[in-house]
């Protein structure tokens, strides 16, 4: 199974860098959607013989991460009439450099973790750590609420990659990870029907600073 996984994991890492460097919301949402579809595909590669349960996990991941949530985000984006991240707290080039550093650190840290027989020589662990860090970076350095939600989505994808290594042994633990998507849905609903766009006149969470010391 290993040989097909690594190229896909590299694709996931490339999408991370793309999300760190892009300013257009539509592009970043699409990137996260592709990442979700790739992850769903990987579920099928991890399993030697396909039974119903992994097929369902893969289907749910592809449907939710690849289509439903991106579509909701696109709608929220249109509803709020926001197209791009204008002034991130950390610029795009520094973000990319930080992302590269995070990936490097992930590779180093992953070396210290011993792997089970079936995962030797795979990029699973460093890719997972690096994607989590990328998501965290996007979440904390972007001002637009939608961009932050996409960051959360990427962070979640990173966790899912580690979940791939546990899928066979402990499927329940990995499956409950889908519940994280509930948060994403709540956020998007909050942006769409709640008053974040109405009362703050833009989706810039920088406006949410009345409560400061």
């Amino acid at each position, binding site marked *: 199974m290993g040989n097909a996984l690594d190229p896909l994991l590299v694709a996931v890492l490339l999408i991370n860098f793309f999300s760190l460097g892009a300013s257009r919301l539509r592009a970043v949402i699409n990137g996260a959607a592709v990442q979700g579809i790739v992850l769903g595909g990987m579920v099928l590669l991890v399993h030697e013989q396909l039974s119903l349960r992994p097929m369902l996990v893969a289907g749910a991941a592809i449907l939710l991460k690849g289509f439903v949530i991106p579509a909701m985000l696109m709608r929220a984006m249109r509803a709020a009439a926001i197209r791009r991240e204008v002034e991130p707290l950390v610029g795009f080039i520094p973000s990319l450099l930080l992302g590269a550093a995070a990936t490097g650190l992930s590779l180093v840290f992953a070396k*210290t*973790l*011993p*792997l*089970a027989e079936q995962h030797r020589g795979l990029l699973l662990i460093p890719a997972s750590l690096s994607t*989590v860090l990328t998501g*965290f970076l996007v*979440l904390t350095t972007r001002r637009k*609420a939608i961009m*932050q939600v996409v960051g*959360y989505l990427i*962070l*979640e994808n*990173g*966790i899912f990659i*580690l*979940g791939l*290594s*546990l899928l066979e*042994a*402990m499927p*329940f*633990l*990995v499956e*409950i*990870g889908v*519940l*994280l998507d*509930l*948060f994403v849905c*709540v*956020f998007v609903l*909050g942006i769409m029907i*709640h*008053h*974040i766009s109405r*009362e*703050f006149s833009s989706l810039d*969470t920088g406006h*949410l600073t*009345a*409560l400061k*010391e």
Partner: protein
Amino acid sequence: MLVLLIAVPLACAAAAFAVPWNRVRPWLLPVAGTAHFALMVRALSNPPAPEYGGWLLLDQLGRLLLGLTSLLYLLCSVYAVGYLRFRDERPNRLFCTALLVFPAMMTLVIESHHLGLMWVAIEATTLSSAPLLYFNRTPRSLEATWKYLLVGSVGIAIALFGSFFLAYSALHAGLGTSLLFDDLIREAPQLSKPWLHAAFVLLFCGYGTKMGLAPMHTWKPDAYGEAPGVVGALLAGGLTNCAFLAVLRFYQICNSAGEGAFAREILVLMGLFSMAVAAVFMIRQRDYKRMLAYSSVEQMGILILGIGLGGPAVFGSLFHMINNGLMKGVTFLAAGNVHRAYGSKRTEDVSGTLWRLPFTGWMFLLGLFAITGSPPFAPFLSEMTILSGAVQGGRYVIAGLFLSFLLVIFLGMAATILALVQGRPSARVEGTKFRDGFLTGAPILVFALLVLLLGVHVPAGLEKALREAAAFVERGPQ
């Protein structure tokens, strides 16, 4: 039995959603509270068997926390009726429903004995408490809810990541895949150590965010500042303790794996750091509800510091968990009353509480002395136990820091609360019609009496339960 404790509040939540009358609906809260309390008493007096193959189980820690949470909820539910009567102009369907789902989910956290199930339960508490914060529908409460969800959801994601690490450390060691806490503790010595270390750090960060430990506490001042007082009491006295329980469970696994020293270092460091941060922000705090939030950051710091010190301090820490839950009832409910009566939570607008709201004013004053650990209240005993644990362990620097943080926090809180209760109400601030009433007063009195009673005499039953729970937490490799 264990399922009933969860199902009864949920059934009431469904009923609350169906009841069309705004005035009748809140009465479902004390109904659920009383039923939960009765079931809790039964569960504590004759321990129920594990259910669902050990996924639901009431252990020594669970019994302690279930008793506290159930009592806290019962009294808060009575207060909520009085509060919602005063806020009758606002639809409370969503609020009441969420306020009934929330205790059910807290009970699930306490009872769940499976790594995955407990994570689901903590996530559910976060989601079900979000509508409670947004009750006032102001831009500020929206902002607070947004921050609460965003910070909380990242914490929960990190906790899941940590759970995966823990699961992988079992997988790598070729152990069973049950993920029940009992099995994990039993097999802990064989767990892969590098994975276990990383897992503990991630789980501590994740659930520490839910506890509101510094530096992951940023949601707390906003959430407690904007939420109604009764919600603040339930979050600060109930939910944070549930997250503390989660941290304790992973500490137990670490300890059984022979890695207790590694975990204790982290707990001591982060405990002191939380106290320091709270002390800094408590000085000259102009918003008394935010001040209570920082006090909660401090209390959480004390709890994990006690666990980190080990030995007698663990007993002190668990005792402090009980006291903290009860004190939150006094302070948050009293602060809620003051906020209702003055329509402001800024210290410059509020004065003369003793004159306008005599009962609440006295309770608030009493709460100040209780929460800062003055004798004869129970927190004095628990904090002294933690202090003597530090001294007995020869950790004088930690004991000194602990005492000095407590002193600074006492000064900061006293300055704010004394200014609130003394003097005459300012003519500038009109205030509202709200006055002390039975429903919004009696629960505070019961909380205050309990804090006083526990300070004078700890019942033998409680002391035995605390000793058993402390021994359970400290249980090393078997």
